């Protein structure tokens, strides 16, 4: 018969306990996460006529804005021979993958507080569900590229197929930051507001709608900005510029994976304390 011990524990004991717990519940977690994922996907656009088309509209609209500004000479971006629509579209898809994952996952606990304070279930399932939803929202729009790309790209090459990998790393990077911030963001609303503010700046200081800056403050900022290599490398794969910043990309991907494991563990330990502060 399964035995549960409930007692106050800190430090190494709570870490061990959490890891044991996650391993024991792995299959149940997976099933629950799948269930909740299906539930949310079904419910997401049920009260809507256009339905899943809404997944595709935002990146298209966002791209059109920049293409319009560029075509009217309001802004002038030198992409070095690459057609601007393709450039902006890929940049946008990548940025949105990161941005949307980060902002939506930051609310994971607060959205489910009613559930968390009533039912005991493996909490990591919430993360899996959120990650799944973010993945769908970020990966599905990639099909836009299939009809669009042939108009703008002259030759096709094998590295193009690496592009979805770039999107996945973007999602994981956003998720890692979100999960790391989740405990504190659940307690204090300042965090989500602050993150949203930073992301607004982030869009403009990251080479999303313009190429890597060559000099000046813009170059410095884009160099220290961790999103830069992730975005630039992935885009270069697709648009055939040859891999730019490949090494930082690989390094960041590895760090992301390690940090993600750490973040999930921290989240697992933190949730009971969050429930206590939210529902008492």
């Amino acid at each position, binding site marked *: *018969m*399964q*035995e*549960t*011990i*409930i*007692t*106050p*524990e*800190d*430090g*190494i*004991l*709570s*870490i061990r306990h959490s890891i044991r717990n996650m391993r024991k519940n792995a299959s*149940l977690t997976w*099933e*629950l996460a799948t*269930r*909740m994922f299906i*539930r*949310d996907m*079904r*419910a997401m656009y*049920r*009260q809507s006529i256009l339905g899943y088309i809404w997944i595709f509209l935002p990146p298209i609209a966002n791209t059109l804005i920049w293409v319009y500004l560029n075509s009217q000479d309001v802004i002038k971006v030198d992409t070095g021979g690459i057609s601007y629509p393709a450039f902006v579209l890929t940049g946008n898809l990548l940025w949105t993958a990161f941005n949307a994952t980060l902002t939506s996952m930051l609310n994971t606990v607060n959205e489910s507080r*009613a*559930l*968390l*304070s*009533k*039912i*005991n*279930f493996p909490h990591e399932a919430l993360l899996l569900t959120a990650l799944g939803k973010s993945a769908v929202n970020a990966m599905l729009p990639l099909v836009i590229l299939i009809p669009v790309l042939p108009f703008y790209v002259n030759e096709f090459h094998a590295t193009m197929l690496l592009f979805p990998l770039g999107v996945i790393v973007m999602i994981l990077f956003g998720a890692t930051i979100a999960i790391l911030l989740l*405990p*504190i963001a659940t*307690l*204090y609303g300042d965090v989500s507001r602050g993150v949203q503010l930073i992301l607004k700046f982030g869009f403009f200081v990251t080479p999303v709608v313009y190429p890597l800056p060559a000099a000046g403050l813009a170059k410095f900022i884009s160099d220290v900005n961790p999103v830069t290599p992730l975005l630039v490398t992935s885009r270069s794969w697709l648009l055939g510029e040859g891999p730019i910043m490949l090494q930082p990309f690989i390094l960041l991907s590895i760090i992301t994976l390690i940090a993600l494991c750490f973040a999930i563990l*921290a989240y697992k*330990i*933190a949730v*009971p*304390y*969050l*429930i*206590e*502060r939210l*529902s*008492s």
Partner: protein
Amino acid sequence: MGSHLPNDSDVLIDVHQVGKKFCRSLKRSLMYGAKDIVRAMNPLLKTGISDSRNKIPELRKDEFWAIQNISFQLRRGECVGLIGHNGAGKSTLLKVLNGLIKPDTGHIRMRGRVCALIELGAGFNPILTGRENIYNSGALLGIRKKEIDEKLDEIVAFSELDQFIDMPVQNYSSGMKVRLGFAVAIQMEPDILLLDEVLAVGDIAFRHKCVNAMAGILSKSAVIFVSHSMPQVARVCSQILLMDHGKSTYNGGNVGLGIEKYYSMCGGGEAMISGTRDIQFNLIKAGTSIESASSTSSELQISHAQGLYIELRVKATEQVQSARFQITIWNMDMLPVVNIINADYQGRVVNFKETGKQEVVLKIECPPLHLNCGRYFLSAVATSVDQSMVYCRHDNIVSLQVEGISTTAAAILQPANWN
């Protein structure tokens, strides 16, 4: 310390010296929360089972013990009634037992599958149909899809919602949601069941169905039952844990005594007067008989099967020509238990015009009352003769504390000759 019986294989719940702190101030509570999380994650720290049993953390500023020093054991087939006033710590204890929040002191050992019915229908997505939500709700409770596939018909049949099962849950009434939630949860076959007032909702027919379904679970598992309805507690429970301000004030197998203690914790209730107030009541005397009646107190202690004697002064205004009087005895659940009337099964009629006086004294002598133990409240009521108008209703004019012999869920214990 160390007084557990870990080898007793039937002990499913073993709670030892459990305590939980809460914080009154939100800002501070959030700050403590952040600190606690950092503490819990610091790999250099090592506190846990071994020393937390003996070490009691200090209260930080603005903190208080929401529950303190709670210990009890529960075996298979036993049911403990967790009773106490609002804010006594019942729900907090249930959340700790369910593993939702961590205790600050003590130690809990739970054996077997735990099912907590704290709020039915938590996790329903309003926009999805009842059928879809059955699966979601089941997954949250840890029931696998295969299990639900097998039991789907049973669940739908139990909820009696077969016509509405493909309708979005947002169009369900609150009672229908509870039906669906309970129908899913009852499929769990738990070893340990935690129930928090969930049966208070839903119509009578469904409540009966739930109680019957629970009876099956009760014999096979250890149950913790939180309720404010003492008849239900008396009917279901084999033990009582009475809580007051986070502490256990009674813990034992004498259900009657536990419930009596709970009742005696309740205040007498304020006297309340309503109606047109053309008539006024004043209590002159109250007691168990004419001889022992005294004017000192409106709170009477009586034994089971003792009589009642009450003297009331009644003052009526000039408008009132005649009136009908009766006395009602209410129990703690605000249900009328006894109506004291006169021999012709009507309220006593007084004709003020005929007697020529607007002030009379009513002397009510009541034969032995077979009330079950507990607390009761008397209301004196004056209406017009045709009962179309209430002149005065004086609630809590006298309160009764009945010392019981035994406790069942019934309000009245009627001895009879059985041949």
